[in-house]
Structure formats: C-alpha cells, structure tokens
C-alpha cells in the first residue's frame, strides 16, 4: 500500500495511482503517468501467490462508523483480479445491517470545472472541483491481475437504510457477486479511521 510520507502527501483521491507521478514529477525516473483508471499493476505478488494465483482476492474490508443522525454508510476494500478479467456485478448486505448496498463512485459534478472557474476560483490547481456520487452501472471492472481499490474519494460500497448506526469494533458480512468468480462473502470491520 501507499505508505511513504511523500506518497501519502500526494494521495489526492485515494485509489488514484499517483505512484507513477511521484517519479515523473521529481524527474527521478522515466515518466509513467499512468493516469488511466483506479487500477494499479498488481503490487500484490505475494497475495496472488498465496491464493494460488488464480482466484479473485478481497482484502482489507472495512466500513466507517456512521453518525446516528444519518442512515447511510460506506464500505471499502481491495479487490485483486484473478487470471481472467472479471467484474463486480452487485453487493448484498444482510437486512439486519442495511436495506440496500450499491457500488458507487465519486465523479466530477457536471460542468464543475467551468462553474468554479466562472466563480472566480483563480487558482489553477484543479483541486477545487466539485464532486458528486453516482452508482456504478453495469458492474465494476476487475481486470485480470490488477488491484482495484475501493477507497474514500473513489469507489465505495454504499450502504443505504442502515438498520442501526455502524459501531466501532463491530463486523458484518457483505456478499459480492462477480460475473465469473461468482459469490464471495467478505467480513467487514467497522472502524472510525481507515486501516
């Protein structure tokens, strides 16, 4: 994972692969600005070996504690693709936890760039872009051998109609259905802070 201080300082939306940029902008090695997707080359050779190299692997599943004032929450995890390209079609949550789970992503609000410029936001950093949440339709692609992070600011499993606030230290199961790998159950740890 991203643990160096420099990388952490850079991590704008988690899940975005800024590691390549780090090298590029400091000029220390060739430019590999892999601005493609939320996937990164599998840095998880070890994990892949552990899981016989073939199967989809899900790790680090957690959900943030939810304030009692709201009935929505979010869960995060790391999914590493298996031998074949696959996609995460749906996520189900026990009704004792929440009424519904969906795969969501944060995207720039329509015309966000134009309107914030029109409003006189003169800095050119691009950091002021307005974001909106939307459901990922048609499944979340999990390319073979790649790691897809569901992390704050990127993808999340949206939990709606929470039966009760998510309390620190509790756990619950989510059932993930993949196009090829089928159903996988993952245990989610509720935490106040990211692991």
């Amino acid at each position, binding site marked *: 994972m991203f643990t160096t*201080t*420099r990388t*952490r*300082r*850079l*991590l*704008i*939306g*988690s899940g*975005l692969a*800024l590691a390549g*940029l*780090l090298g*590029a*902008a*400091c000029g220390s090695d060739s430019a590999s600005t892999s*601005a*493609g997707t939320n996937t990164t080359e599998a840095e998880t050779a070890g994990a892949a070996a552990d899981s016989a190299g073939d199967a989809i692997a899900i790790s680090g599943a957690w959900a*943030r504690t*939810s*304030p*009692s*004032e*709201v009935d*929505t*929450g*979010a869960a995060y995890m790391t999914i590493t693709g298996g031998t074949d390209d696959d996609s995460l079609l749906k996520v189900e949550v026990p009704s004792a936890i929440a009424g519904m789970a969906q795969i969501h*992503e*944060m*995207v*720039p*609000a*329509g015309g*966000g*760039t134009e309107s*914030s410029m029109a*409003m*006189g*936001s*003169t*800095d050119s*950093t*691009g*950091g*002021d*872009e*307005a*974001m*909106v*949440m*939307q*459901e990922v339709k048609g499944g979340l692609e999990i390319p073979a051998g790649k790691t897809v992070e569901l992390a*704050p*600011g990127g993808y*999340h499993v*949206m*939990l709606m109609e929470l039966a009760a606030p998510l309390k620190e230290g509790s756990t619950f199961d989510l059932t993930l259905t993949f196009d090829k790998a089928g159903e996988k159950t993952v245990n989610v740890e509720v935490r*106040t*802070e*990211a692991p």
Partner: protein
Amino acid sequence: MIGRRSRLRAAIVGALLVGAVTLAAGCGSDGDAAFAGYERTPTPHVGDLTLPAVEADGTETDLAMKATGGKVMLVYFGYTNCPDICPTTLADIRQALGDLGDQASDVELAMVSIDPEVDTPEILTGYVRSFVPDAKAVRTLDDARLRAAAEGFGADYGHEEVDGKPQPYHTTSLYAVDPEGDLVLSWTFGTKPDDLAADLRTLLGRVA
C-alpha cells in the same frame, strides 16, 4: 457511458495535476514549500462574510468567517447524507486534532451545510459534533447568502440529477482561515491527517 468516462478522465487528470503541483512544491530545492495544502494568489479574504451558526434547537448566531484571535478556523462545505467524502474529511480532521494534542483547542471547525433543507439544525449539529465535539454547525436556508459565502471560498455546490434523483455535489476542499479572515490554506480531499496536523502547527505558529 462515454460522458462518464471522459468526466472520470478529467477528474483523474485534475487530480494528477494537483499531485504534480503538490509534488513540485515538495521536491523543489528551495522556496517555502512547507505545506501539504496549497496557498492561493491572491489570498482570498473571507472574514467579512457571515453565516448563521445553529444550535440543535434552531438558535442562530451569526458567525464571521474568521478565526478567533490566536486560532485557526477550518471551514468545510458538505452535507450529512454524504457517506464517503464528508465523513472521511471530518474523521481526518478529528485525527489531525488528536495529533495536535493541546494545540487542538486553537483550531476551530465550522461545517457549512450545502443541503440545508435536509440538514436540520438538530441533524447538522449532532452530525458534525460526533466528529469534533465543539464544532460549529453552519446552516442557512437563504441560498443567496450561502452562495455568496461559498463563492468567497471558491467553493461550488448544488444538486445535480443522477439516475433521476437530485444528488448533492460540492467542492471537496478543506479551508483554513486566520484571525484576519484570510483564507490562508486549502487542502484537497485525501490529504493525510498527519499532513493536516503538520500544516496546522505551522499555521498556528504564524497566528500565535
């Protein structure tokens, strides 16, 4: 689909640009690039703006967008029914304040609701104070007033139709205002708590 993809690409490119700027600052050989957040030129002045700080019972007190003397005020535009960006930012602030120890009492936090119809005084105060107990909950149903304040910060917000339903959107930056009412630093979403804490220490050193 194409629309979404190109928007996503724009977001990623934007994020990378921010990263590049931050990084250039971080690995430059000279200059005072000590911040994880970014400073704007010219520095926006927001101290003449006021918005109502509410209590759970609906009581309102006008709050000027400037820190108390010797302190730094964090201002965040968000909404409570926001499961990802807002709680992440607020939890990161809580963690940064924890890192600051005694100095945390010199950091003020105001969360401004961009969804005030849904965020009643009771919901908004309870929500933000579940993260930071003495935080100010800022809410007005006067959209012109809210819009003017947001513009002062360079923040955008509104509702946009997503899958047939209005979905709130908002600028995800966190802002620091000094006792003069100058917006001295902005952090993009995803700034790590220890970097926030380090920046706050520097800012507090300046206003002390």
